[in-house]
């Protein structure tokens, strides 16, 4: 019996050991010599534009208002749009307490004001770009319109600065941020003009912080207004007069810093008649923009963008064969614009696709991550193709998913720009789904 077991061990060791060593170097794949020595079936690919499966599409407006946007659009494009930003700064102290525990106050005496606007986006080809500051009523709010603020913008300019001229002036290099050759890798480059305007170029060079130096007439402290101030901004240029200003929602709002002093009365202090200096800051309690002409009302087309923002909801009736026996390798939504978007010629904006988690109409919850995105270029009437391959692949594999998506602008309501696509109500131009798919390989057939 022992001898028989010995033979078994020998047999298993020889076969198993030898096989394990040889099996490590398996190589059976070679370039095919087709068609003679390739499988009879081949991987077949099809490319189809489904023109009727996008249906029950609609647009809805009001998701984000202009005063909730990440930026304020300011533009002056004759014949196209006149967009103006405005904001109301928070209340500020007009009097100060001079002694702790004492209710006696004394008025502050303003000295000067440093006021900052952040230019988040601009056309670098714009020449003679000028920014003008106006007073607007502190009662300005979400009900304010272009017309209601027109009078304020027709008042004398509070201050004006030529950004192009500032950028063309000699730069003041921050030597702590630059190397010995004054090359700036990270940090700021600063420009200054004779009127006290300072322009700081931040980081990548795309964001400009523009500082105004205002006096007590330009930024008065009105006790009746609790120190509140309202400002409006217009822009002008030889051409391409369009910028975006930072807002509270965008994390870079207008910012006012007031420097003041007050005198301590001799009756309440051990330092009678002494002068004390101080400063306080104000940020907007409200910021927004108005433009003319206003965004047209929704119609039968699919509107995306504008302010308040509009989104388009598109539902897809997936054909049964797209759920089985195929593998989607590319899927594109094909959208035909009703007309080219008006605006600054070199500008663009981004629209994104979000999958609808549950179809509840206008208030449908959306997947937070974008399923596709593309840029819409101003003035281009071209058909828009949006890649949504991963989304359609998911629909193909999971029949429980909601087959609908929403088109929206990013960032929303930060601009007057809006694109309109033909909807399924326009048979000749309705949205389509362009799907490239691979047919299931016929395994098992010789």
């Amino acid at each position, binding site marked *: 019996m022992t001898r028989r077991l010995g033979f078994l061990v020998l047999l298993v060791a020889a076969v198993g050991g030898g096989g394990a060593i040889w099996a490590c170097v*398996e190589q059976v794949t070679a*370039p095919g010599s087709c068609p003679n*020595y390739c499988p009879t079936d081949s991987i077949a690919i099809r*490319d189809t534009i489904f023109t009727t499966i996008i249906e029950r599409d609609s647009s809805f407006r009001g998701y984000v208002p202009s005063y909730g946007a990440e930026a304020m659009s300011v533009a002056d494009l004759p014949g196209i749009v006149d967009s103006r930003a405005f904001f109301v700064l928070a209340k500020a102290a007009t009097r100060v307490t001079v002694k702790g525990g004492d209710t006696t106050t004394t008025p502050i005496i303003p000295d000067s004001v440093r006021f900052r606007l952040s230019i988040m986006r601009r056309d670098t080809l714009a020449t003679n770009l000028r920014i003008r500051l106006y007073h607007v009523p502190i009662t300005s709010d979400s009900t304010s319109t272009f017309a209601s603020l027109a009078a304020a913008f027709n008042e004398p300019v509070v201050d004006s600065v030529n950004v192009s001229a500032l950028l063309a002036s000699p730069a003041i290099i921050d030597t702590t941020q630059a190397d010995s050759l004054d090359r700036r890798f990270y940090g700021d480059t600063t420009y200054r003009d004779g009127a006290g305007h300072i322009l700081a170029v931040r980081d990548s060079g795309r964001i400009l912080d523009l500082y105004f130096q205002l006096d007590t007439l330009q930024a008065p402290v009105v006790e009746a207004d609790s120190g509140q101030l309202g400002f409006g901004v217009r822009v002008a240029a030889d051409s391409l007069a369009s910028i975006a200003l930072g807002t509270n929602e965008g994390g870079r709002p207008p910012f006012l810093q007031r420097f003041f002093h007050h005198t301590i009365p001799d009756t309440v202090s051990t330092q009678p008649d002494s002068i004390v200096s101080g400063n306080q800051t104000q940020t907007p309690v409200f910021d927004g923009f108005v433009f003319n002409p206003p965004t047209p009302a929704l119609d039968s087309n699919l509107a995306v963008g504008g302010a308040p923002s509009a989104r388009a909801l598109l539902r897809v009736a997936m054909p049964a064969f797209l759920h089985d026996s195929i593998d*989607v390798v590319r899927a594109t939504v094909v959208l035909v614009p009703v007309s080219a978007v008006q605006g600054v010629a070199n500008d663009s904006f981004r629209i994104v696709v979000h999958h609808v988690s549950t179809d509840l109409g206008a208030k449908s919850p959306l997947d937070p991550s974008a399923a596709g995105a593309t840029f819409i270029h101003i003035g281009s009437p071209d058909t828009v193709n949006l890649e949504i391959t991963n989304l359609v692949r998911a629909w193909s594999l999971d029949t429980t998913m909601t087959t609908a998506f929403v088109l929206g602008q990013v960032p929303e309501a930060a601009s007057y720009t809006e694109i309109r696509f033909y909807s399924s109500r326009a048979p000749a131009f309705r949205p389509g789904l362009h799907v490239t798919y691979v047919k299931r390989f016929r*395994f098992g*057939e010789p």
Partner: protein
Amino acid sequence: MTVGRSDGRTAVALLVVVTLAAVGPSGRLAAQDSQLGIRGLGTPGKSESVRARTTGGAFAPFDAFSPLSDAALADVRRMSASVTSGVSWRSVDASGTQSSLQGTRFPAMVIAGPVTRRIVVGGGFSTYLDRSFGVIIQDTVNLRGVLQPVTDEITSDGAITDLRLAVAARIGGRLALGVGLHRITGSTRVTATRSFADTANYRTSTAKDEVAYGATGGSASLLFDVTSDLRVAGWVRSDSRLRADVGGHTVSENDLPRTYGAGVQWRAGAQARLAGTVMWRNWGAVQSIANAHDTFSWSVGAEIGSPAAPFRFGLRGGQLPFGVGKTPTEVGYSGGLGRQFAGGRGRIDMGLERLQRRGTGLTEGVWTFMLGLTVRP
């Protein structure tokens, strides 16, 4: 000789252990594959032990451990098991495109033992059709008005195995008859992948599945000793249609060929044995395949030296069943050694084979190193 219960248990244990050992390392049972089998049912396996294979296959109908002829089992005098393995290096020249391939195979295993003085029962497996291959195809397709380079990779990993249960009986002193029942089974893991040069816009498509094969068959054979030194053999085999199932659904059914063969062996004294065989298979009856051909094959070989340590060599020629146009051909040369040990209870065989295959626009050269082990516990 009588066979006790312990022999029966040993037989079962051997069968299980050897099968697991053979299948385990590579995960498949296969013969030597060929590009010539891609556009067909596969590459027919060789039902030969290392001993038979190193004689060009000429000794197969007379060799109890070659699962070709059931009647040969009648020569088994005690419980025995034999397994064959091999590693192949294959060079392919397909219309000027050359590639080198390599594979490890366990083409055959036989276990047999007498149940009475005249009757021997045996079984085992061999590769019926090999379906292991992989092809890479590069092409350009017009997608959305743009010429798009694509790469397809279609792979199949597996084989169709012939499980055999056979009975052989010696009738009188000169005649031995054998019959076998065959269950043809196996599966292949298949993958078809298309990838695009433009990976930014196009996703790779991969389809995977498993194809299960099934058929049954029967075989009959005889050995006749014309004289004490001259033996002739004949065999015939027929199988049902081969069914291919994917996901539980039958996707194809194909005819399998009938096989007819004959051989002669001459013992030229105590130190030399010569043999020759011919075999015909009507693969052309596979109606579903356009370029299937009937095949005729022949082989001659010799075993020189004492039975305990012989030297073997052989020559084979023949045809392959699947190929466009002219029937593909195969020519082979082989040689090898055998050595008994442990007082004849074990034998190790090894050999080297060179095959040259030619089809329309395709040439294959194969070197195969074979190792066989036979034990009689």
